[in-house]
């Protein structure tokens, strides 16, 4: 056996355990899921083949529909607001000032705390008799206090704001790393040419940062599409179906309604949707990337 072949075989053998595990715990269940998605299956009786019924029923399910629209709102808000604010904060944090290190740490802390713990704490704070309403009363804003998580109009917007609170700092730190990788001599050269302020940002910072923008947008979009923990713990999709997300709708279809076949169909559609959205987003942003 020649040297190259031996090396190749060694590599394959070292990869084999990981590939086997990946195959058994991901690839094989995925293929099984495709089968189950065409069945009526409550995980207690054997699955019964029903063709495309599960996929057709997705379009009629109120929870799925509300989950879809809420999830899209989440993603849109993240892309527009969270992304912009994170970039703004990163630009500010990139300037020299004394408490920079403390502020960077404070911004990053929310993402370090477990989402479950965050949800429980915020649930208490946002209760009708919680601290948040208490502060509003002290500020003389008693007229606007309400059960923030118990009203159809405010439950999902509240959840969106909580995800922003958790995610902005994380995105800002990623942007900060990107900003610090832009060489200073490019800014110096531009300043010599007379560029300053927003012009510098638009012509130098933003194009050089596009690779980071791709990454951050990807994280925001996929994170938004996968939102589950906050609505599950805080509202379980209620009141009514006002705070449902796609992931929560799939989860409840499986574990509340015991419709595992239907939930599998929904999760396959969701997976492909996430893949397509991610590919489109990466294609759009990668075209604008500038390399040194």
């Amino acid at each position, binding site marked *: 056996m020649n040297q190259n072949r*031996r090396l190749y*075989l*060694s590599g394959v*053998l*070292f990869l*084999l*355990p990981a590939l*086997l*595990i990946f195959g*058994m715990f991901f690839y094989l269940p995925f293929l099984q899921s495709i089968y189950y998605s065409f069945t*009526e299956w*409550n*995980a*207690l*009786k054997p699955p019964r083949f029903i063709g495309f019924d599960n996929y057709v*029923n997705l379009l*009629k*399910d*109120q*929870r799925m529909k509300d989950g879809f629209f809420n999830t899209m709102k989440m993603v849109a808000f993240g892309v527009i607001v969270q992304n912009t604010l994170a970039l703004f904060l990163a630009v500010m944090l990139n300037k020299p000032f004394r408490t920079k290190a403390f502020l960077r740490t404070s911004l990053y802390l929310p993402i370090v705390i477990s989402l479950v713990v965050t949800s429980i704490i915020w*649930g208490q704070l*946002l*209760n*009708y*008799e919680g601290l948040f309403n208490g502060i509003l009363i002290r500020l003389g804003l008693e007229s606007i206090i*309400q*059960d923030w*998580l*118990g*009203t*159809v109009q405010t*439950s999902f917007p509240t959840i969106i704001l909580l995800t922003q609170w958790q995610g902005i700092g994380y995105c800002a730190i990623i942007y900060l790393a990107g900003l610090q990788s832009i060489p200073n001599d490019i800014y110096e050269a531009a300043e010599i040419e007379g560029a300053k302020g927003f012009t510098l940002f638009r012509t130098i910072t933003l194009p050089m940062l596009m690779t980071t923008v791709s990454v951050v947008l990807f994280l925001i979009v996929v994170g938004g599409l996968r939102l589950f923990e906050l609505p599950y713990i805080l*509202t*379980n999709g*209620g*009141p*009514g*179906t*006002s705070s449902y997300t796609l992931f929560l709708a799939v989860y*409840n*279809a499986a*574990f*509340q*309604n*015991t*419709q595992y076949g239907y939930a599998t169909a929904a999760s396959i559609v969701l997976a492909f949707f996430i893949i397509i959205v991610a590919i489109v987003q990466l294609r759009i942003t990668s075209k604008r990337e500038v390399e040194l």
Partner: protein
Amino acid sequence: MKSSKAWMGLMLILCFGLVLSACGGNKNNNASPSPSASEAPAASPSESASEEAPKAGSDKAFTIRVGAWFIDDRSYQVAFKQGIEDKYKELYPNAKIQWDITLGLPYFDKLKAQLASRSAPDVIFYQNQEYVVDGYLEDLSNEPWVARLNEAGQTDLQTHFQGKTYALPMGGSIGGGVWYNKKIFADLGLQPPKTTQEFMDVAEAIKQAGITPIALGFKDAWTAQMFATNWLQPYLFSEDPDFGLKIYNGEKKLDDPLIQEVFLNFQKMKENDYFNKNALSIDWPQSAQLFAKGEAAMIIQGPWMPGANKENIANGGFESFDIGFFPLMDDKGNTAMIIGSNEALGVNAQTELMQEAKDLVNVVASPELYGPYLVGGGALTMLSDVSVTYDDPVVSEVQEAVSKKSLPVRLESYLPTSGANALIDVTTKVVSGVKFTPADLKPMIDSLERDKATVTLPE
């Protein structure tokens, strides 16, 4: 070269071993690790039980798992659990009971996953008939306590199917009703209402006195289902016991005017501020605290409320008060209580500790354990040789309501699970302040149309 061949050989062996261990079936998933379970041949559970099962009084050491969602730190539950352990030790001195307790609804999610993966406990407390219908529970028709079941016990829906008995009904529970603070009512000169209008009037009077009329804990979605179901019951079933069947057969629709009327009642109560402001963001224990403190005059709950209220008052140091009961009613004053076992105790058909599991159920069915459990939970007996005297006189008010009219079926008996969940969605939506429209009932209608095949009609 020799060492690289040795490494390659080792990697191959490791991979092969990994494949074998992953692909190997474990036929002993249900029994807890024990000498008897591991020694048992891979035969059907009943065969292995008859060959290997230790006789009562056996010295064999084993661990038997019991699953439950409601056994918490309330004193009667603690006593119940201890009583089972003590009495079971008399039969099996070296046995250990492992309590697999997950409080609340997540227990049922977990139980379904466990049953599907053959890792469920040996003995299972459960609700709903689906576990019986889908063949996950052992037929217990020949057990000694079955002959002791009274008429209510013999007709209990969630423990019986196709003429067989699959579980011990843990007492007859009312589906729910209105528990009220007698002191508040007396102070305000109020009487328990008999019609929906009187109910609204009573709530208004209580609200004018600065007290929350009704405490809700709808963060626990089952409380929303309980309120809706028990209020639908008199409207739908008091004059037509076949209403549910007519819904199933399509003779009546789920947007029937009677059903709409109940949700309009909810809307009216919300508009008039008869519920606590945080109705949708607190759970049932928190709503029970509001009631125990005297901050709310009424609460819609199950038969465990008197005992739970006493404990809340004692633990919280609140001023004690007598608790009263009245059933939910329709506009004409009709009532129709739901009666059936709240909890049922069955044996996992896959267990390898079949006889031990059946013996544990027999232990629970003993008068010394069953009786106090009924008293603590406010449930009515379903065993003819167990009669109980309740500490709280309110139980006689419950029994009086039950004796007027009670049914073992409810609307959800004729709906798929998705339909029952759609009912919760409408209820929480209306209670959150959204105006009710008939279109809100469409998801329930769609779910019945879509998932009708999953409904098991009551016998």
